């Protein structure tokens, strides 16, 4: 069980940026991408996201399982949206569709509009994931707390986020230890019988000790924080963050992207656009 943050992009161009840039760039990109259905806009955005991802130098072998999960999830989103809507997407009615053929049994039309829609969703979520990866793999785990604090998140909340990442490895170890201990007693969660609800109820011997032990064990951390006067005054952070010129340029580019896309969206220029090449010719 490997849930601890992995700093795979250490030393890369993106890892050398102020970590606030990684959070803000992602937020700007996500807010921009959700407004765009036009492939002519989304394609360059996705290319920019890919270049951004490449600059983090995250080894493919280390994250291919994550990408497989993303591919599955995007496929699922596309499938349910296209099948459940009967092919009527983004305001297109069936009479407006350029239909290739119909699915047997469901009779859902497979159309140029549906193919475009699927491509947009693929690019949108794929690029959003690419923008998100560097936060997981190219940001120093120790920078997480100061980053959120310097983004004006209340310092107690920022410290809680920092603490969450610090607890992850030890709690994962506790979980593994508990699983092993229960296995010795003959309890194996993945072999428990009794249907889904029965299996859920029988998860108690695993979930209860890990949770209660973690809460009881937290007393030491709470005492340590209280003894150091946590919460009695404004907290400062040892790690100082400062934007460099490149950081500001990168951030400015993403903010500009968000502003331009929002303006285009408000004026109706980001709607689903179907490339001519996908429209079937009569005869």
């Amino acid at each position, binding site marked *: 069980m490997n849930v601890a943050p992995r700093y795979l992009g250490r030393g890369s161009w993106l890892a050398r940026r102020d970590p606030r840039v990684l959070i803000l760039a992602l937020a700007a990109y996500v807010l921009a991408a959700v407004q765009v259905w036009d492939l002519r806009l989304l394609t360059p955005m996705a290319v920019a996201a890919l270049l951004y991802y490449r600059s983090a130098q995250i080894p493919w072998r280390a994250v291919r399982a994550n990408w497989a999960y993303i591919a599955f999830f995007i496929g699922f989103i596309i499938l*349910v*949206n296209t099948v459940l809507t009967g092919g009527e997407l983004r305001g297109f009615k069936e009479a407006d569709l350029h239909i290739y053929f119909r699915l047997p049994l469901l009779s859902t039309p497979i159309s140029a509009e549906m193919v475009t829609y699927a491509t947009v969703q693929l690019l949108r979520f794929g690029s959003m994931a690419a923008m998100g990866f560097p936060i997981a793999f190219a940001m120093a785990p120790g920078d997480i707390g100061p980053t959120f604090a310097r983004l004006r998140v209340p310092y107690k909340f920022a410290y809680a986020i920092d603490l969450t990442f610090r607890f992850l490895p030890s*709690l994962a170890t506790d979980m593994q230890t508990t699983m092993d201990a229960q296995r010795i007693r003959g309890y194996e969660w993945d072999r428990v019988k009794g249907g*889904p609800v029965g299996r859920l109820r029988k998860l108690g011997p695993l979930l209860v000790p890990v949770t209660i032990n973690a809460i009881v064990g937290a007393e030491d951390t709470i005492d340590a924080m209280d003894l150091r006067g946590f919460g009695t005054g404004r907290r400062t952070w040892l790690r100082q963050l400062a934007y460099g010129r490149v950081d500001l340029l990168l951030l400015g580019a993403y903010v500009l992207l968000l502003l331009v896309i929002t303006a285009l969206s408000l004026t109706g220029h980001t709607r689903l656009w179907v490339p001519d090449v996908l429209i079937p010719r009569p005869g």
Partner: protein
Amino acid sequence: MWDVSSRTIVYAAIGAALYGVTAQFQIALPGTANVSLRPSFALVTFFGVAFGPIVGLFVGLVGNAIADQISGWGLLTSWNWSLANGLAGFIAGWWAMSMMQGQNKLVNAAVASAIGVVIGFLFVFTDIWLGTAENFGVAMSDNYIPVVVGDLIVAVILTPILVAAWEPIRESMGR
């Protein structure tokens, strides 16, 4: 209930980290296309009920974001789902601490969790605006109903179990 002390912060962080660690456990419901039981969700409602709405909000919001990050989906890609999880924990905690004082704690935990799930996950309808769900029908049948059914089952069964284990320890610790 609204005090943010070192205790609040540490419990919130532990809950969120536990959510991330246990997110690997999923139980598929036979006969359904996309409904699965996520036992980790019970931690959101449990921490809300046991330690208050602020802790519940944090465990749902940050825990779900971290679980998404660990899987590779990304910290903010489904930010509205993280917020929905947080709202469920917040409402469960608020309901348990303000509306159901003095009643049977296990029943209280189950009812507060159910209310938190049903109301908190209404936020996933924002998927219509974000384009993840094409229309209200898709958002209802593909997002809201599956998550509410799955999380209701989990929360109503596991939250009272966790509360039953925690209460005697809480009393012995004098909390």
